């Protein structure tokens, strides 16, 4: 196949990838979108084979490795529980990053295969592109591994900070730029290896100071990085499918990070520089005197909700941890039988990744048109009889609207306190991730239900 013809087909793949994302603008078109994506990928792979003039015995090995990787991927895709989606996505990001590093290494070792010149005399532009691809890929890889370990709970979710952390990161970042420059001057392979190693270290250092609840930002950011790495390799390979995809993924991740930061009213740099939970501990200890709380049980909750005319459910990360989404759905079914109107309110940063709660509710067969975003539903709390807060905390804290001293001041919150009564399912009175006491616990219209989210919800179903 001629180079021009294959370039044309790569362009078609790129367009199919755009359509794949376009499909996600509504759930009805999303499945079709996914097929566009698969078609684009298939075309790219076939065209690559056809554009290589001869591929005797190597071809069979490529197929074997493709099948091995594909079966592993398919196995994971079918087995993974929906609650584990954040760590799965983080894991997948790391693979893209590492693949980018490997392709860059291969191109560096054998530039003639990619028409980039010969060893020791690689074209300057190509050298810059491949070293950028390798560096970003390496950062994506090691950063995603850390994110994966934190989300999986293998590593503690609390921020790891040490002295001069940001200074060291800055130095290493400058060192990477210097190495790329030096590599272009000398073409030394040792410089290239050092570049890759330093980038791996930067990836680790970049993610360790970021705490568990900031993971939505981290995952989106790594998503973005994996795109830029792919784009870098795309420039090296002069492949438009890869360039288009890299740009799409890069901007997609950047937008998601922006949305997540906005959901927390924090700047991107504030999140990346890390250590939110660590700095606030001092401010909340003083307000720790015992205030009275109203303590309820499942029967009280069932009674309240059964006699309500409308109920809004506010799910959070705790629901995911307790796997309470199916029980929740049963409870809602029972309420609906009693003629209660039920809807769900989702905060942008609920959960550990963008859209996390929506997927879990969808898994429990909750129709997506009963699930609303913050702006859509926030006014309805004033007219609602019961708000059922399950596994959420900081995103309901009214202090964000009233106290300029509070670290979460200005963060958009769900106006849960405006509903006639609030049911708060929680294991204890402990503050949420931000380390701030929730004023809501002590309000007159709040009934605390101290229990595991799933157990409590199941008990309510029984008494309904």
């Amino acid at each position, binding site marked *: 196949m001629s180079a021009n013809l294959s370039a044309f087909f*790569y362009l078609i793949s790129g367009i199919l*990838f*755009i359509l*794949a994302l*376009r499909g*996600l603008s509504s759930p009805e078109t*999303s499945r079709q979108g*996914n097929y566009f*994506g698969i078609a684009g*990928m298939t075309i*790219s*792979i076939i065209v*690559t084979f056809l554009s290589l003039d001869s591929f005797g015995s190597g*071809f069979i*090995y*490529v197929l074997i*490795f493709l099948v*091995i*990787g594909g079966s*592993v*991927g*398919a196995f*994971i*895709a*079918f087995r993974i529980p929906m609650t584990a989606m954040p760590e799965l996505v983080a894991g*997948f*990001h790391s*693979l*893209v990053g*590492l*693949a980018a590093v*490997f*392709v860059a*290494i*291969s191109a560096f*070792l*054998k530039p003639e*295969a*990619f028409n980039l010149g010969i060893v020791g005399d690689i074209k300057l532009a190509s050298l810059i592109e491949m070293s950028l691809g390798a560096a970003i890929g390496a950062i994506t890889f090691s950063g995603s591994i850390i994110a994966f370990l934190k989300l999986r709970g293998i590593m503690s979710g609390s921020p790891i900070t040490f002295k001069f952390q940001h200074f060291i990161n800055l130095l290493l970042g400058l060192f990477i730029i210097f190495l790329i420059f030096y590599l272009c001057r000398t073409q030394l392979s040792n410089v290239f290896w050092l570049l890759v190693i330093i980038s791996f270290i930067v990836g680790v250092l970049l993610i360790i100071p970021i705490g568990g609840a900031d993971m939505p930002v981290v995952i989106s950011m790594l*998503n973005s990085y994996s795109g830029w790495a792919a784009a870098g*390799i*795309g420039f090296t*390979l002069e492949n438009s499918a890869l360039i*288009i*995809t*890299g*740009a*799409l*993924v*890069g*901007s*997609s991740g950047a937008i998601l990070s922006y949305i997540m930061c906005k959901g927390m009213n924090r700047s991107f740099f504030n999140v990346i520089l890390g250590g939110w939970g660590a700095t606030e501990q001092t401010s909340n200890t003083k307000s720790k005197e015992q205030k009275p709380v109203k303590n309820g049980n499942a029967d009280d909750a069932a009674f309240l909700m059964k006699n309500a005319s409308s109920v809004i459910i506010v799910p959070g990360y705790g629901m995911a941890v307790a796997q309470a989404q199916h029980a929740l759905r049963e409870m809602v079914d029972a309420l609906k039988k009693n003629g209660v109107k039920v809807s769900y309110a989702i905060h*942008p940063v609920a959960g550990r990744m963008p*859209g*996390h709660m*929506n*997927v879990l509710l*969808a898994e429990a067969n909750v129709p997506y*048109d009963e699930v609303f*975003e913050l702006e859509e539903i926030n006014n309805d709390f004033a007219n609602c009889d019961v708000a059922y807060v399950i596994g959420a905390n900081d995103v309901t804290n009214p202090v964000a609207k009233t106290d300029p001293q509070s670290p979460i001041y200005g963060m958009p919150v769900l106006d849960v306190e405006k509903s006639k009564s609030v049911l708060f399912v929680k294991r204890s009175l402990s503050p949420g991730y931000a380390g701030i006491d929730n004023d809501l616990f002590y309000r007159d219209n709040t009934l605390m239900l101290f229990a595991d989210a799933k157990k409590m919800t199941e008990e309510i179903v029984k008494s309904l």
Partner: protein
Amino acid sequence: MEIDPFIFRLSIFILSIFVGYYVVWSVTPSLHTPLMSVTNAISSVIIVGAIIAALAGSNDNVFEMSNIFGFLAIVLAAVNIFGGFLVTQRMLQMYKKKKK
């Protein structure tokens, strides 16, 4: 004077960033998780580079250093392609409208 083909690729890149910007803003927030998994899957089109790397060079020695890195990259990208698209499909199947 001839224009360097790099400029064309740069144009594609920058225009794609704009396309991405508008397309992603139109994605409904409830589908942000599938958005991440599908972007993950499509960024594995890097397998194109991996295949070229794996098959580069002579036919008598398919396992030179550069080929090995190519094969490794194929495995990684393949995990992502199949895993990414299938898990996206699995999620999207779950999104259902209210029964009338």
